[in-house]
């Protein structure tokens, strides 16, 4: 079994440089931040061992000014949590005892000498520490970091207390106990240890860094000839979130995946195998600067502008899609991320967003011979011609893309308006001009990308328990194939209107439903165009849940109004425990082979998705 390294090398060429640049930028900022913190934070105890042990838990705290000084206040975890901890009796005893009163302790005025705070009385649920030095000159983010680094020593030597009944608990457990001689509370403030233990990304990582992800196995079995597995995909998703400071963070996500089908079955072409067998994909790698009303993100990221879901994209027009498996994979998997600069400004109910991105990514389309070779309007010509050259635009500043969106919420009406100037993510099949070819039939074909201007709007509103949604998109100068011999390259530019209207309603608090009507219009359509002037689609979706939503059956049905072709997707989601999810379903497409869904009639499949989150 040989792993095909072409996609990996392609990734190296495509994304590695950008990833390294973003990581270097983040690292530089992080180091600057760390050095600054070490110089200025008198309570930075990075060199001390962290003695997090069986102790009362400090789960939150706050800092506020009061006459005569600044108060640093801690809240110990509630007693019910302690009662549930069967492994540590001292915790249970101590926390119950701590609920009996309050205590205050003073810290010496020289803040640098403060390491441990000794309390006169341990019998305090809320520990208040008077910190004499004014710390107003620190900005809020630094104040928060200071809180997280504080430690408290709770001396209990000689103290004896009695456990009372826990709130909501039983009196039967009451007993007189002698607590440990000394109990240290060396918990990082601001964290909930219990949540951290249970959380998926709870690996031992530096503070503010979280690593999580999932393992996925996806199987698909063709129900038409040849009856065999169509996919045996295994994927590792790793996502990293690093909060370098409250205002600066890094987010990364990588997929490493391998599909065994292309080594087990040899009826796919080598070209398809190279395209589909294995891949390493940087899904996200961006830094975020989050300050005041601004959020600025730079790097590879997802930018989603639509209101509706279901695989029929209209206003979700910023990022290209991976359509190698048509619209059948999960929506988030279909969307590709892009290298971009995203600047967002928040002002109450208004929101303004500017995006800039180089034109390096386009729709991923299946190679000829694969089950979802797409789109149908090229298939026959390309099949007859064999391979066709693809002309991607050079990556220059002039070829980059920009977009602007304004959103607003008023009396429950959520609306947005946007403009986008980018390349068409679908290639256009054009007749190329060569010195020796003058007639259209003799011209070489080429797939090339054309520049587009898009203007759109979205809305959503909750009315009488139902949610109304809509998206509208006007596209200027979209190229279409024409049979008009006077059109030299076989393409003609037309304006188009796409819109979708949707309504969601939940029946009897049990059945969630969605109805969508989508229409695509070509304005000033000529009879010579290969495409239809108007395509209308209706989709229905329904889902319910049983046994505490551990079993969720659902069905999605979409069909075209003008000509009969459809997609039906029944499936059931099973949740096993807290980390495992299994989806079992069937995709059936029917109709004329020249139509949107009908072109994949022979690609119906049973499928499973098995996720394990960590």
């Amino acid at each position, binding site marked *: 079994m040989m792993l095909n390294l072409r996609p990996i090398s392609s990734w190296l060429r495509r994304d590695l440089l950008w990833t390294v640049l973003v990581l270097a930028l983040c690292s530089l900022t992080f180091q600057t931040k760390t050095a600054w913190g070490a110089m200025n934070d008198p309570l930075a105890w990075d060199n001390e061992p962290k003695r997090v042990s069986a102790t009362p838990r400090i*789960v*939150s705290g706050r800092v506020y000014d009061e006459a005569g000084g600044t108060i640093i206040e801690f809240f110990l975890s*509630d007693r019910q949590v302690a009662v549930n901890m069967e492994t540590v009796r001292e915790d249970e005893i101590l926390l119950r005892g701590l609920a009996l009163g309050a205590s205050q302790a003073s810290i010496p005025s020289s803040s640098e000498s403060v390491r441990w705070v000794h309390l006169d009385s341990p019998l305090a649920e809320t520990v208040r520490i008077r910190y004499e030095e004014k710390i107003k000159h620190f900005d809020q983010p630094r104040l928060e970091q200071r809180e997280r680094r504080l430690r408290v020593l709770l001396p209990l030597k000689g103290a004896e207390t009695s456990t009372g009944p826990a709130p909501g608990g039983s009196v039967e457990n009451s007993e007189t106990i002698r607590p440990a001689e000394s109990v240290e509370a060396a918990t990082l403030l601001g964290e909930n240890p219990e949540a951290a233990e249970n959380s*998926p990304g709870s690996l031992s990582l530096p503070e503010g860094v979280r690593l999580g992800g999932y393992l996925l196995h996806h199987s698909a079995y063709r129900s038409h000839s040849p009856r065999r597995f169509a996919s045996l995909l295994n994927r590792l998703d790793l996502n990293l979130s690093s909060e370098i400071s409250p205002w600066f963070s890094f987010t990364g996500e990588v997929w490493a995946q391998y599909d065994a089908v292309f080594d087990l079955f040899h009826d796919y072409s080598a070209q398809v195998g190279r395209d589909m067998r294995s891949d390493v994909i940087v899904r996200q790698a961006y830094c975020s600067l989050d300050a005041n009303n601004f959020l600025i993100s730079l790097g590879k990221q997802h930018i989603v502008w639509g209101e509706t879901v279901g695989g029929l994209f209209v206003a979700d027009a910023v990022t290209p899609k991976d359509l190698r498996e048509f619209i059948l994979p999960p929506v988030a998997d279909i969307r590709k991320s892009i290298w971009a600069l995203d600047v967002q400004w928040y002002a109450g109910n208004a929101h303004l967003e500017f995006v800039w991105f180089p034109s390096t990514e386009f729709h991923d389309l299946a190679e000829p011979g694969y089950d979802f070779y797409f789109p149908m309007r090229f298939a026959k010509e390309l099949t007859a011609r064999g391979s066709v050259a693809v002309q991607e635009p050079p990556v220059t500043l002039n070829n980059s893309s920009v977009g602007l969106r304004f959103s607003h919420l008023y009396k429950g009406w959520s609306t947005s308006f946007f403009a986008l100037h980018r390349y068409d993510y679908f290639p256009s099949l054009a007749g190329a001009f060569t010195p020796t070819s003058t007639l259209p039939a003799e011209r070489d074909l080429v797939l090339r990308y054309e520049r587009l201007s898009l203007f759109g709007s979205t809305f959503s509103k909750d009315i009488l328990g139902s*949610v109304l949604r809509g998206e509208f998109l006007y596209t200027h100068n979209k190229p279409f194939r024409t049979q008009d011999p006077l059109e030299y390259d076989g393409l003609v530019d037309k304006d188009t209107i796409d819109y979708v209207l949707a309504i969601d309603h939940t029946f009897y608090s049990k059945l969630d439903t969605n109805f969508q009507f989508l229409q695509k219009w070509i304005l000033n359509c000529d009879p010579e165009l290969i495409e239809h002037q108007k395509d209308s689609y209706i989709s229905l979706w329904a889902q319910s*849940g049983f046994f505490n939503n551990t079993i969720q059956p659902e069905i999605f049905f979409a069909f075209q109004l003008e000509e009969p072709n459809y997609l039906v997707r029944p499936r059931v989601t099973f949740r096993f*425990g807290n*980390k495992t999810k299994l989806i079992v379903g069937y995709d059936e497409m029917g109709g004329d082979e020249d139509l949107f869904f009908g072109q994949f009639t022979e690609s119906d499949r049973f499928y499973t998705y098995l996720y394990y989150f960590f």
Partner: protein
Amino acid sequence: MYELLSARRRTLLDKRLTKRHIVLALVFALVWVVFGAPAGSLRAQQTLEPEKLLTCVDNVRNPQGDYALRVKVTSHSPSKEPKTAEYEVLVKGRDKTLIKTLYPPLDRGTSMLMLGYDLWVHMPTIRQPLRISLQQRLLGEVAYGDIARANFSGDYTPSLLDKEPDPATGLLRMELMAKNDQVTYHKVILWIVPENCRPVRAEFYAPSGKLLKTCSYEGYQEVEGLLRPCRLVMEDPLKEGSFSVMEYSSIRSEELPEKFFSKHYMENLRY
């Protein structure tokens, strides 16, 4: 001395005294409003005015203003393992709530934003904020509205079912009627301790009059200067043995940025 002053100076002095009195009165009024009003609301039980009582109950249930807390929801069903979920809840003002799902891992990263009665959910599997309705179930007996809607007084019109507290229990019954159809429950019967505005028990009804669930307020602990219920037990009367426990912890008052409460920020929330 005063008599020796000229008439003009006396007039000026009178004016100054009058101004000083006005300033003093204003300061006194301000002090009373700032410091006396909460005490006044806590004294509402003496007059048994339902609106003031309900506001007082809200003050006991949650800190007013901006605050954040963690909620652990454990759903119990007969002969089944308890199911646990954990959320971080951020509240700004009276009608802006953000719920971040921390646990279980399957749902981690899912967040819910509530602005007034407008709701959005953001799921990692979709990566975009989706508008949803308030009635959508969250987990077991707990609805989004149970966590997100922190104030009864904003959603319900109160009235007293009893003229005086029950002599045996000392509890007073209030009836809360939903102000509009978007509220999670049509009617609530609330048992409170009128002396300190502590809620003890609540029954939630559908428009048909059907009892949907009951809630008992337990685990009172001192939070932000008041004893507040930190453990809520919600039961569905039609499902014997099934109940959900909501445990509040890490309640802290802090000013929260306005942009956290924008649907566009949901993709950028940190977990």
